[in-house]
């Protein structure tokens, strides 16, 4: 399948080149400045990098503002996310240059530096997650389901399985009670899905293959239906796990971003005051 229109537009985006050029320029400027003398706290060079870092940080917040302005702002949000990513990396670089490649001293600088590193690394990790998980969900699973619907679907599955088992031969009923009932009962998040999107289903489905040989007619049909429900449950669990990761990741990013903004503001005010 060819790239969707949005993807094609993204690949043609000049923004990374522009920001890359700015980053290169900053590195060059640092190198030049370091030839003249070292860069440290209070130096004009350091201050310049600090101001640039603050501007880049504020600019990266533009994405958040744009998301909340659908009513009055034209244009698409996607380029703003791209800008946010690149500006975030640029901010980290500029902060590094601002410190003159020195270790932080004092709680505030440690906190700011820690937040900056966390946000940059976490942001890149988040970007990786956003690229990887959708592809895994789409290529590895046959169903597509809304996260909020999963508990209701699992409940319906479980009820159906219970009804089938109740009207099945003894062996199937026993198999259901021992091996399936607990698995089907409620949605589960399992780290295994991060490594294997199918949840190791092949091994689990083998049990059905074994039993199949012992039945015919109605028994086989019941088993086939139970297998279909079980496979469906595995897919729902995969969605439940991976979509949860997608939803939860911002909780590791946004509060720290707010904290960094507050710390930077405090840092700037304290410099101006003192």
């Amino acid at each position, binding site marked *: *399948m*060819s790239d*969707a*229109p*949005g*993807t094609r*537009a*993204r690949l043609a985006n000049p923004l990374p080149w522009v920001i890359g050029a700015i980053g290169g320029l900053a590195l060059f400027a640092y190198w030049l400045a370091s030839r003249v003398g070292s860069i440290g706290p209070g130096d004009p060079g350091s201050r310049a990098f600090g101001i640039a870092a603050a501007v880049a940080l504020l600019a990266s917040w533009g*994405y958040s503002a744009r*998301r909340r302005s*659908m*009513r009055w702002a*034209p*244009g*698409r*949000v*996607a380029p*703003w*996310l791209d800008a946010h990513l690149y500006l975030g990396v640029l901010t980290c670089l500029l902060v590094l240059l601002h410190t003159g490649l020195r270790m932080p001293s004092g709680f505030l600088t440690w906190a700011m530096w820690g937040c900056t590193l966390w946000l940059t690394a976490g942001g890149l990790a988040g970007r990786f997650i*956003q690229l990887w*998980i*959708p*592809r895994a*969900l*789409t*290529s590895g699973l046959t169903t*597509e*389901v*809304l*996260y909020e619907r999963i508990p209701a679907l699992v409940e319906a599955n479980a009820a159906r399985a219970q009804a089938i088992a109740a009207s099945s031969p003894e062996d199937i009923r026993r198999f259901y009670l021992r091996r399936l009932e607990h698995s089907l009962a409620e949605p589960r998040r399992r780290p295994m899905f991060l490594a294997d999107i199918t949840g190791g289903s092949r091994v689990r489905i083998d049990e059905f293959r074994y039993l199949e040989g012992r039945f015919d007619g109605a028994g086989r049909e019941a088993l086939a239906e139970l297998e279909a429900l079980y496979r469906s449950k595995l897919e729902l669990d995969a969605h439940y796990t991976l*979509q949860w990761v*997608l*939803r939860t990741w911002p909780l590791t990013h946004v509060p720290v971003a707010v904290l960094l903004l507050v710390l930077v503001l405090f840092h700037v005010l304290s410099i101006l005051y003192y």
Partner: protein
Amino acid sequence: MKERPSAQDTHLVKRQQYADRWSSFGEGTGIEWISDRLSASDLSALELFADYDERFLEKIAPDVSIARWRPGSVLFEEGTYLDLAFSVLSGEVEVFVSGVGSGSEPIFATTLAARDPGAGGSGEPSQLDRRARALDAGQLTFLSAMDFDLPRNEGMRLGAGEIFGEIGALNGWPQSVTARTRGPCELVQIRVPALRLMKKRSKELKRRLDDRYRSRTLSTHLAAAPLLRDCDPGLIDALTDRVELVSCEPDEVVVREGDTSDAFYLVRSGFLKLSHGADVGAYQVGYLSKGMTAGEVELLLEEPTWRWTLTSVGFTELVRIERADIVDLFRRHPFVEAGLWKQAVARIKSAGYHRRDPRRSEFLQFSLDTGLVEGNSILAIDLTACTRCDDCVRACADLHDGRTRFVREGERYGNLLIAKSCYHCQDPVCLIGCPTGAIRRAQVGDVVDIDDDLCIGCGACSRSCPYDAIVMHETGLSWPATMLPAGLRGKPQQIASKCDLCYTSNWEPACVRACPQGCAFRVESLEEFQKLVTGDE
């Protein structure tokens, strides 16, 4: 054990259901009186139903009523969609084009007034006024041919025994005239399900309705077809007497591959599917929609048999032209043959592509099954990029008073999710039967929109939509005691909502704009979709 309802309870429920079905046309409109459910013997006493047996009449009775209308009442307006045909029992009905006549308000505006007693004197324009203005400004366009061939500002009178409105109702086309009672009138009102059954059962009725179509509309329709547009009008008129009008049920085979090819078909409404191969292993090679033709390849290459099987996708109306007549047309107008050659080459090329690449054929089948062929604007989401953040849904809700107009669910084809959002169909069936005219083309591109001020939440559009694109919302209010239709009085107020492509904002739809991954987009044609799916240019 639940108690079985008594015969009387059942009878009362049936009466109520029957009344509700007709309750759009209630008291306070132009209707003085409307019948209770008619019995088979009541119907058989009417000339229109004389040819049908009792059992059949019982079957269609719920969809037939007799109504007595006041003088000067507007039955329907030009450009509206109805699911009704009318037959005059007594009195006279006047039909005209683009007139804003005197007389009582049309049923839609009257219904609006009944909802809000203050609205009548508020100075706000009635729907009739708004439509008249749109017509004058040349903004109102009709989706297809006229079912009355009338010049502007001229009228026509219909008396006892005349049937009208059936062409638009059966084909899902907008009415091309305004109809108004000249004096007190008694009319038989027949809904489309009954009309279809009647036409299928009675050759005489079919002949009568087809004759009417022939005399009123067919020549205009043929002249409007791209193939015959520049032909001599006299020739077109002569052709109208010779063609056969074919009505197809869903999944009806029109011609089979290998059958003798002796005719040419023009699609009046609906869709035909072209397939190749045996029934079990058949694969789709194309489809035909309104205005398109079939049989040109066989005709031009002088092939004795059909290359493909043609099957009706839904209810389809066709014009069948004998080969000899088309050959005669070629002789008189060589440009018609030249035009057909282009179409034939394109058809063979397309069939070849589908045959070589099974994905295309599979996709075509999927498109026909899910209605993508109808769509003018389909919301698709690339699931390989979608992070399931629901920003698209939130943005839609933000722009529409907190109520989202689509759901991020739907059919999946490959990596694409076809969201349950209005397709803005070429022939929107949701427009048919709206009692107030609230759902209509917004006169901006192909946008189909619902006017919240006119919507009474009856749910007809939501039930009609084959793609679950229209959602009924509770408003938290209840309908007043003066509400029309009467069946809604005291009930919770609902309102229909659907995607409107955010046309009032003059920007791209919010769902597309808001997507941070750029994976939500609107596809405007099947060809565009095909390229995305198969990667072909």
